[in-house]
């Protein structure tokens, strides 16, 4: 995977998408095989579906946490945290506890927490699934712009084909588990930098979506309804 690439993994439930991410970050041991990222653990950031902020720490303390783990002193870490909160549009909210932030704001804090560590590779596991449509579109736009600017490579796991196509350079389709493998990969010919919301209007989008959808449906078990149930 080259620097700055954005790839997605899509596949039926149970194909091991999440396990793969967890193996890359070292939270889970792969059943077989090895994980090679060529990166130090501190160069890899991960964003889960749950924001999982420490409820007893204010937003800025949550963001500063990873920096202090890397040995930065608290004062500098908090300054960096404020800068990242500003960048994610949360200026002035650093003193709030997670409970007093909206879902979208919490997601932004979690994002700031990861990006403040300046990872080279960002793993995201269904990161936006819990957000409502408008907030979700806005955050996706901002994340796309940020990773593009910082030249961060991204590996995104998602159920959402539109999200996968509109953000990625390459989309990988996993087969049904157990013993899932990569079925196919799809290059996304939409040029970058791109706006993920507008990317859906690109002429290449619809045919690619159609293609992926029929392959995925077949993998899930024929009937397109099966995906909805999955």
């Amino acid at each position, binding site marked *: 995977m080259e620097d700055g690439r954005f790839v997605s993994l899509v596949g039926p439930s149970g194909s091991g998408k999440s396990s793969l991410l967890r193996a890359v970050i070292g*939270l889970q041991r792969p059943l077989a095989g090895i994980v090679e990222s060529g990166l130090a653990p501190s160069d890899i950031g991960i964003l889960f579906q749950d924001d999982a902020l*420490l*409820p*007893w*720490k204010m937003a800025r303390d949550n963001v500063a946490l990873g920096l202090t*783990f*890397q040995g930065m002193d608290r004062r500098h870490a908090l300054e960096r945290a404020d800068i990242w909160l500003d960048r994610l549009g949360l200026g002035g909210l650093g003193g709030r506890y997670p409970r007093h932030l909206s879902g979208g704001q919490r997601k932004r804090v979690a994002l700031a927490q990861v990006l403040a560590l300046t990872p080279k590779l960002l793993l995201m596991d269904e990161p936006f699934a819990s957000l409502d449509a408008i907030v979700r579109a806005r955050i996706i736009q901002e994340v796309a712009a940020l990773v593009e600017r910082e030249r961060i490579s991204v590996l995104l796991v998602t159920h959402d084909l539109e999200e996968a196509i509109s953000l990625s350079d390459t989309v990988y389709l996993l087969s049904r588990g157990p013993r899932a493998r990569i079925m196919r990969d799809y290059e996304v010919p939409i040029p970058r930098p791109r706006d993920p919301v507008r990317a859906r209007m690109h002429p290449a989008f619809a045919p690619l979506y159609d293609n992926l959808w029929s392959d995925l449906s077949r993998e899930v078990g024929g009937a397109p309804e099966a995906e909805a149930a999955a």
Partner: protein
Amino acid sequence: MWRNPRLAMLRQAVVLAVLLTLWEMAGRAHLLNPLYMPSPSQIAAALGDLFGSGRIWPHLEATFAAALGGLAIGIVVGIVLGVAAALLPFLAELIEPVMTVLNAIPRVVLAPLFVIWMGVGLASKVALSFILVAVLIFFTVFGGIRQVDRRLVERIVTLGGTRWSLVRHVYLPSVAAWVLGSLKVAVGFAFTGAVVGEFVAASRGLGYLMSFAQSTFNCALMFAVIFLILVVVLVIFAAAGRLEKYLLRWS
């Protein structure tokens, strides 16, 4: 005024005042036998006498010492045992059944035993308060640690935290939150232990005063002491509530 929810306190106060007045009037009209049911003014007089003569202070001091001593030791021991049992499974095998039994029985039945073991002094009351509180805190902490949010643990690990960071940023705050969450119940337990212990056998304390009132058929004193215990526990409850609210302001 009868519907506004903000005036609920006022309505409650009015009803209480009416009931107390009726009670007082019934007493003055000799409808109540003062031997069994002294009137509010007689109870107030008994209270006034307790404080006026200064007789009450050694009793209050004894009860507070026993309750707060038992509370403090109970919390510390409960946390230590809870953490140890949650982290060391072989220890949990030994401690948990004992705690479960202690939890199942009404622990105040141990009061006479503690008096035999430790005498009628302060120690037996502290012990009873302690056993009431420690079992409660043990289960709070033991159950809590096993239910620590896995996502928080993973978050700290993926941000590069060490084992110590986990203890400091996840486990300790979680334990503190659970203990604070049961602090009010623990305070109630601590005073129950102290008063029951004194009731069984003592020479000082509010519980002793009640036992004295009972043996001398002094119902006014009995009511006065009940009222006093009520006030004491309510004040401590309020203080514990304040502390909880401040320390758990994030929740």
